[in-house]
């Protein structure tokens, strides 16, 4: 009992310490969360969850306003961030598209127009096929696709985005060939697969969970270095943790994950970057965040500073290689 009291006291002290700001910079007016997707998109959910956690735990003293700028696959939001040079009251939420978009489209911003703050999670990608498809594992599906090149269809959201990049990587690694059909978002790709109009998609867990629960689609493997965290069974006694990684399944592909990233405009004070990184780190330690991660079957991974810049450099290089091979690079 005494031990418990001490432990509780220590925890309380650390909470109090956490509330007292470590950095010298503080927001002086309302903070704008700029979301690089439309309402209801993956990045929108990400930003709004962070907003709700910040509000609940009062992690930022000033009010937080969410602003959707999803035009041009999110480029609109980043260009808005570029225009707000030096303004530390604008925080841009995105994915790896922050540094990948300028490769594939002529856009009015560069990565150097943004200051990296942190990444909070990695979203996962899986190969999904129809629930009643005759393939029991990834290997069988790839072989079938190889046997009839150009007749299997892969659904994804948009062109030259993560889904098509991953499809290109799989094609490169296995020699199979798909017809890639770009839809408006992962939700549409999920229904198209459930309706049997395409043969597979590479959706994130959250985009296909509803269809998996109903047995309309099934996952073959996950493009993650390790298996996903264990979960309650979702369909037929299987949960997220029971899905083999694609490497286990015999696909010569290491990993493909999408970071959920947070940025500030260029030329903001270093203290401001530290302040937001600190806030985001606190967010990533709340039970609400853990619950969100578990429900959407993402991988929790907080990164800031050097770790983040290294991750970005590595991810950028791997994707840029695919873009070059596919002839997507515009500049």
């Amino acid at each position: 009992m005494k031990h418990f009291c001490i432990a509780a006291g220590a925890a309380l002290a650390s909470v109090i310490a956490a509330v007292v700001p470590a950095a010298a910079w503080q927001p002086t007016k309302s903070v704008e969360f700029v979301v690089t997707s439309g309402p209801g998109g993956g990045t929108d959910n990400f930003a709004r969850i962070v907003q709700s956690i910040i509000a609940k735990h009062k992690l930022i003293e000033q009010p937080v306003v969410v602003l959707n700028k999803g035009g041009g696959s999110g480029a609109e939001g980043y260009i808005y961030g570029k225009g707000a040079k030096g303004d530390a009251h604008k925080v841009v939420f995105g994915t790896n598209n922050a540094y990948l978009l300028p490769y594939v489209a002529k856009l009015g911003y560069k990565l150097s127009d943004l200051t990296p703050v942190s990444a909070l999670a990695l979203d996962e990608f899986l190969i999904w096929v129809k629930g009643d498809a005759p393939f029991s594992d990834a290997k069988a599906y790839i072989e079938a696709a190889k046997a009839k090149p150009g007749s299997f269809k892969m659904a994804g959201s948009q062109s030259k985005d993560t889904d098509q990049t991953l499809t290109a990587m799989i094609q490169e690694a296995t020699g199979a060939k798909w017809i890639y059909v770009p839809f408006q978002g992962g939700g549409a790709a999920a229904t198209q697969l459930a309706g049997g109009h395409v043969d597979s998609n590479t959706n994130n867990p959250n985009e296909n969970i509803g269809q998996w629960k109903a047995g309309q689609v099934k996952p073959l493997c996950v493009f993650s270095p390790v298996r996903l965290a264990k979960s309650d069974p979702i369909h037929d006694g299987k949960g997220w943790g029971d899905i083999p990684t694609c490497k286990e399944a015999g696909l010569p592909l290491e990993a493909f994950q999408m970071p959920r990233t947070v940025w500030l405009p260029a030329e903001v004070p270093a203290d401001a970057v530290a302040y937001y990184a600190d806030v985001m780190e606190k967010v990533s330690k709340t039970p609400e965040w853990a619950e969100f991660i578990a429900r959407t079957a993402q991988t929790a991974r907080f990164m800031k500073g050097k770790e983040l810049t290294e991750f970005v450099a590595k991810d950028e290089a791997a994707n840029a290689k695919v873009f070059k091979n596919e002839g997507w690079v515009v500049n």
Partner: protein
Amino acid sequence: MISRFQAEIATALATLAFGFVIVNGAREFGIGWDSSGPQPGAFPFYCGLLIALASLGTIATTVGRRMGGSAALARVFLDKEQGKRVLSFFLPMLAFVVLSVTLGMYVAMLLYLVFAMRFQGRYGWLPSLATAFGTVAFFYFGLEKFAQVGLLKGPVEATLGL
């Protein structure tokens, strides 16, 4: 005074120009048909072409009817009196836009409403100012405070610290 004929031709020339802008912009992305259907530029290209052709058609038929002595075309499109009325509404509106961009929307709103009521509606200063301030306050509290939607702000808001 502008005749209907002049207005028809001027508008058709403007849409013709718009059509060319679209056609020119679309060419960059390929306008043909490849193995996976139309190329990205094809759809806008043909839309632009259609605009241009239909505009030319409008010009041709308008000129044709004019030569045929159509009475409708000789009629007045906008007489002096009408022109004055439209401009008396349009110019303050334009001023409102310019002021919005330079001084912020709330200040522009205030000036515009006072001007329209006091000098165009010939209301007294008191009702004019009261209505203008009331409207501005309504939008300020409704949008900025309640709904947390920000409007364009200028130097005045900055000095007031809003």
